[in-house]
């Protein structure tokens, strides 16, 4: 012991935890580094067996090998021994055992430890990290496969691109639309690989393309554009361009291309029909009506019989015009493109305009017309021409079905949330059995079918418009006494989707 004590001051400052036992394995010294590592004070372990540090987690064979070496007076190194602190927590060490011989016999054993807890922890973490990465990689691969399957199953063309517009990925449908092969397109710029034009065929400059909006302003852009193929062929595409944003920065974009050739063709057919009905049909009718008007100006030159014929032609022409107008309204309504004009309007002004238009017919039939209104009917934002059509149809029906000298009245009032229009007449009335059917297309009640002109479209259009506006129409009628229609229209309107509104957006 004597010469060993000389080294104690050295052990004291040695950063490696160190324990010294005598030949009978009683602890004679532990240095401050081990005190710190194990949590034991030297005084607590003095004279005790070092197995006080055992955790039971180190395999027994390690101790057996150690024991054999030490008995044989040899040095020994153990790896990854797990020891226990005073507080019960574990630490890992590599340690070197050195027997100190006195008079040829082992008198002391010195164990110098290397705390490898942190190292092991780091290793474990590293392993765990690696495992997590591996799992992530696996799931990414799965996601990619899923994503790819998803991309391929989409019926629209999809192109993913980086922030400069270079193509990263695209699907089969894109190949079909653009006539591309994926492998030739990767890395190429969407700005140079195809051209877009407007309806007139004017090429859309780079800055005006929807993708530019997505990449520069991080907003979703969409609209109908025409893909120029082989310089002549134009394919209408509905393009949606959405930015891909990572940590607030636009890193790329995804474009979706829907081929809307069919929709465009249908829209064109609708337009063609409306053009035909409004212009082609009405032009000769206008010519006939105006010609008769001119003839009638020299009325005195005709016999009574001739005048009667002229009036008949005129009336029939007017009937044809009315039918054409109804056909136009009905078609526009059914196409969902009845042009609603959304603007500030006052129902009282609309009614006044309408009454002025009907003035002559009211006078001709010597009808007493009564117009009443609530005091606080205000101007509000609404579909002014829709209100006009509703009132026009109801009032002209009322005038039509009311005998000479009868009464027609219009009352406009409001509740907190609704505008209420009420049209009453002292006309022929609607049979009870017919009341449920008068809003059907081309239905005409039997009591008016032969006596009055009409298409059976007016109330159909009227109720259709009222439905579009989220309102409702009800009827009360007594045969031979008269009819009252009540229309309730909410002030807060659902936005009516007309094609005009959409095309303004696009």
């Amino acid at each position, binding site marked *: 012991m004597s010469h060993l004590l000389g080294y104690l001051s050295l052990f004291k400052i040695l950063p490696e935890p160190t324990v010294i036992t005598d030949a009978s394995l009683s602890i004679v010294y532990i240095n401050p580094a081990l005190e710190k590592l194990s949590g034991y004070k030297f005084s607590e372990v003095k004279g005790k067996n070092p197995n006080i540090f055992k955790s039971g987690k180190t395999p027994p064979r390690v101790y057996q090998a150690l024991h054999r070496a030490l008995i044989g007076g040899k040095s020994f190194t153990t790896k990854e021994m797990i020891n226990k602190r005073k507080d019960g927590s574990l630490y890992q060490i590599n340690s070197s055992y050195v027997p100190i011989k006195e008079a040829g016999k082992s008198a002391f054993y010195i164990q110098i430890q290397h705390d490898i807890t942190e190292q092991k922890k780091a290793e474990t973490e590293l392993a765990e990290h690696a495992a997590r990465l591996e799992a992530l990689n696996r799931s990414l691969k799965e996601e990619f496969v899923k994503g790819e399957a998803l991309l391929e199953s989409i019926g629209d063309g999809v192109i993913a691109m980086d922030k400069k517009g270079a193509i990263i990925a695209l699907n089969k449908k894109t190949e079909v639309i653009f006539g591309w092969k994926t492998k030739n397109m990767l890395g190429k710029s969407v700005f140079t690989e195809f051209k877009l034009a407007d309806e007139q065929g004017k090429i859309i400059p780079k800055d005006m393309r929807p993708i530019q909006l997505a990449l520069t302003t991080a907003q979703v852009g969409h609209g109908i554009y025409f893909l120029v193929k082989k310089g002549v062929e134009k394919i209408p595409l509905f393009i949606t361009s959405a930015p891909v944003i990572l940590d607030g920065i636009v890193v790329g974009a995804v474009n979706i291309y829907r081929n809307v050739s069919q929709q465009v063709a249908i829209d064109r057919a609708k337009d063609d029909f409306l053009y035909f009905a409004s*212009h082609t049909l*009405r032009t000769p*009718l*206008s010519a006939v009506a*105006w010609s008769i*008007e001119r003839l009638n100006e020299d009325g005195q030159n005709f016999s009574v019989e001739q005048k009667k014929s002229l009036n008949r032609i005129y009336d029939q022409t007017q009937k044809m015009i009315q039918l054409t107008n109804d056909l136009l309204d009905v078609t526009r309504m059914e196409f969902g493109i009845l042009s609603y004009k959304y603007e500030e309007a006052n129902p009282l002004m609309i009614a006044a305009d309408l009454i002025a238009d009907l003035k002559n017919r009211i006078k001709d039939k010597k009808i007493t017309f009564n117009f009443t209104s609530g005091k606080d009917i205000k101007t509000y934002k609404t579909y002014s021409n829709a209100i006009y059509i509703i009132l026009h149809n109801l009032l002209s029906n009322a005038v039509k079905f009311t005998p000479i000298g009868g009464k027609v009245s219009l009352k406009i009032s409001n509740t907190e949330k609704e505008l209420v229009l009420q049209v009453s007449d002292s006309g022929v009335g609607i049979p009870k059995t017919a009341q449920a059917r008068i809003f059907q297309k081309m239905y005409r009640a039997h009591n008016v079918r032969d006596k009055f002109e009409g298409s059976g479209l007016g109330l159909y259009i009227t109720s259709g418009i009222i439905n579009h506006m989220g309102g409702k129409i009800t009827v009360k009628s007594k045969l031979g006494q008269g009819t009252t229609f009540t229309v309730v229209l909410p002030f807060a309107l659902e936005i009516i989707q007309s094609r005009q509104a959409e095309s303004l957006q696009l």
Partner: protein
Amino acid sequence: MNKQIKKILLIEDEVVLLELLAGKFNDSGFAVTTAQSAEAGIKLALRSHPDLILLDLILPKMDGLTMLKKLRKDKWGIGVPVIILSNLNDQKKISEAMKIGVYDFLVKSNVKLAEVVEQVREVLG
């Protein structure tokens, strides 16, 4: 000034309708000039400066609204009253015409000749 005969320009490609309109306006005491295309119409308008133009929308080659836009770029043309007289009463067209600046939009089949004259007189005061 009131006594002076008012000059109106009719731009209409349907000959029958043009003759009916011209006849009616002549009989009503207007000095009438006519054109059957937008190109001829604008030339005539800029040369003879009529007091009012009755304009059809559907015309061969250049349509009525395109002509109207061109007309409104002229120093004189910017102020001349224009009434659209067309059978194409699509709301989009009406709004577009109103935006460019027209006095009214009449649908041929829905107005009498007498009403057209009445409307023109109203505009010319």
